[in-house]
């Protein structure tokens, strides 16, 4: 075969490989041109795809046609060594003067290393800066407190009449629109319909609750006004606002904490304290 030069199939394979690599080069040029012309994500992706697909086809044909494939056999020594060899290694490791025989010294070494390892854990505490509150405290406290004004997402103070009857209004402690555990919402309900009073009390049916789902902390943004329920978009917990924001479906197990409020002398809403329970997901020290 080799005496007559490449066979017809070899020549055909070579032609196809050259064509594939040619397509690949064209794809690469196409990419460069697209980029230089100002760029276009689709064309760039398509050109690179052609470039690499060309490479792949060329290499694959080459591997299948022009080099020997498959059917080679290699011996496998296995991992059961001759018993003497294993024994020799073990004997050398545990020879009489071997360090592993010095039990007392090893124990001292172990003590030193353990102490070092334990000491090395201390700097990890710096991951939580020392000037921050301890976690279980931080999770319980929010910027809400007596006298803190309620503002909307734009930072404008909220009056009782700013809360319409048919939708929820996201409210925040003044100056803390971006704080993670502070978001709350205000709704207006008919006090007659309460089957259980809201934990934080209400102002003529105006109630404020934490916006954070007690399951895993997502904002319960969907308000179904007919049934006065709020729905969490993350795992579909729903809370019945007429029954003290008790969870009625889905995985959440605790009611939304309420926020006690009053109308201040300035006509705006003020909190009279913090949430009735830590907002958001539960934790070991949740009261």
């Amino acid at each position, binding site marked *: 075969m080799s005496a007559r030069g490449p066979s017809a*199939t070899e020549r055909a394979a070579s032609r196809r490989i050259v064509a594939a690599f040619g397509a690949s080069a064209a794809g690469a040029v196409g990419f460069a041109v697209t980029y230089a012309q100002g760029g276009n*994500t*689709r064309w760039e*992706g*398509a050109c*690179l*795809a052609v*470039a*690499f*697909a060309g*490479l*792949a086809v060329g290499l694959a044909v080459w*591997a299948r046609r022009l*080099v*020997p*494939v498959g*059917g*080679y*056999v*290699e*011996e*496998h*020594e*296995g*991992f059961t060594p001759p018993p003497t060899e294993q024994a020799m290694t073990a004997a050398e490791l545990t020879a009489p003067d071997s360090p592993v025989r010095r039990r007392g010294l090893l124990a001292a070494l172990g003590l030193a290393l353990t102490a070092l390892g334990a000491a090395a854990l201390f700097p990890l505490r710096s*991951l*939580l800066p020392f000037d*921050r509150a301890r*976690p*279980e405290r*931080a*999770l319980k406290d929010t910027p809400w407190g007596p006298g803190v004004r309620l503002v909307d*997402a*734009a*930072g404008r103070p909220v009056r009782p009449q700013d809360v319409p009857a048919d939708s929820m209004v*996201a409210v*925040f402690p003044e100056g803390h*629109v*971006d*704080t*993670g*555990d*502070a978001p709350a919402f205000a709704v207006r309900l008919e006090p007659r319909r309460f089957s259980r009073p809201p934990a934080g009390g209400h102002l003529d049916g105006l109630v404020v609750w934490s916006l954070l789902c007690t*399951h*895993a*902390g*997502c*904002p319960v*943004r969907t308000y179904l006004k007919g049934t006065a329920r709020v729905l969490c*978009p*993350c*795992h*579909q917990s729903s809370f019945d606002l007429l029954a003290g924001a008790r969870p009625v*479906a889905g995985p*959440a*197990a605790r009611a939304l904490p309420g926020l006690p409020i009053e109308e201040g002398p300035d006509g705006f809403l003020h909190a009279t304290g913090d949430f009735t329970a830590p907002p958001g997901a*539960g*934790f*070991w020290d*949740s009261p």
Partner: protein
Amino acid sequence: MITDRLARALDDRLRLSPIARRAMAKVFPDHWSFMLGELALYSFVALLLTGVYLTFFFDASNADRVYHGEYAPLEGRTTSAAYASTVRLSWDVRAGLLIRQTHHWAALVFVAAIVLHLARIFFTGAFRKPRELNFLIGVTMLTLALANGFTGYSLPDDLLSGVGLRILTSVVQSIPLVGAWLAALALGGEFPSDAMIPRMFVTHVLLVPAVLVALISLHLGILVRQKHSQFPGPGRTEHNLVGSRLWPSYTLRSLALFAWLLAVLFALGGLVQINPVWLYGPFEPAQATSPAQPDWYVAWGDGALRLFPSWEFRIAGHLVPAAFFPGVVLGGVTFLALYAWPFAERLRTGDRRQHHLLDRPRDHPVRLGVGVGALTFYAVLTVAAGDDIIARLIRVPVYDLLSLFRVLVFVLPLLAGLVAFLVARALRRGDAAGVGELTRADLRRAAHRSVRPPEADSGESETPARDRPGERIELWPEGDLWRWRYRDEDRQVVFPGSRAVRSEEEAASAARLAYPGVDRVVVPGPPPAPPPGPVRVALRRWGRAAAAGSLLLAALLDRRRDRRRQERERAEQASSPEAADRASTGGGRT
């Protein structure tokens, strides 16, 4: 010529040729399933390459930044630097969106390749002695891949990923005693903290990738030392390995696979939109997207959080929240079970032998049943993560669907596992060659436990029978070198030894190792190789042309569909009240 000179120059200095010659002759099994691990490896390489490019443009900071650029809706707004730079990457950095989307697609493919690779290892028993160590390393790499996927996904500080991060933080907080501390230490304070993005960034681009590189090296080093396993077949024993050589065929084929992967990833990255963070908006504590689905590989956790009932309890006044069980316990049990499986199985079977021949999945009905059941369980959880979307699509109340899933998550895995178990038993006991040929009688027989199956997991039975007359080893000289090959006349197989050696003894001892007890003869010379018939050549050529054509067609169709979808999205966005609401509440940062 140049290659020749270079090789000689290197060898003169480093004396590489003995190692290189063995390496080039290394044999790889030809079954497709051995490519899955390679696919994972190459996806990781693609992630490294695209990821490093992203680091040049991504600004890993929670600090405020005013966005100026091509994306008009965000023009002049203040967001975190991370979010603003991701939008810049997508709209203002030329080729930025391509690389960003390719990185994301590569992450999805990476985890998928690892999971498929793991399934292959599991169902074929490739984790048995001596490969337990590599199994443990592999499971560790899966956890790291999931972790890196999650941190990467959270980096852009957009609304969707921010909510996901909040959920994960809540899950960590739910751990008894230490949860609140763990979460606070990790984030440097309460969620959302200013240290969050920088820390995740270092974890994502340095810590985890470095550990992964180390583990991959170890994984491959062990693989080379232990050699591949292989499926049973004629001439394949516990003492040898049949397949293609590293040089040249496997080198070319493996590079071809890499190129295929890159072609697919760049096609996806360029043509199929993924994670359009500019549409989600920046993270804000009071906002949520709906529906909210995570990337596929964390969806099982999300599904579990949805399905687990609203059940929590107190221990001496302390709360164990509902998220603890589906979040922490399920995840922990999953990975512990994976780590423990090789040892648990050994405990049950008492099998302490070395195995280089793989099982067929049917050889171990229990393993198959457990594996299929587990996969079904996680699949149901994954689907359950989309229960709100499914409910909307099929117009069923979401809570009815939830109840259904709560049943299915137990029933389907049990059923699937049982069916897999019975089918495996029937295949093993009966004489049906495949699932299609099983008769009802086979299945009925499989359901009875009394019949002791023939001992199927004794790989040793595959060693060549001493008395098979057709089998022999042929050795022949080739210039100064010697070669050998295995021939089985009855089964019509001929396997040349993977490399030439310098003496007849060397060839004989290699052959003796590979085929203990088979007679050796010296023969004159190599037989001529038969050329492939013209029909087969033509068939292959047509097949390949058809495949290329259909690929092109698929790409075109996909592009068209995608463009249409984008138009629709643009139209929807313009008219959706939700978007307007978000803009009005979100735009008012002071």
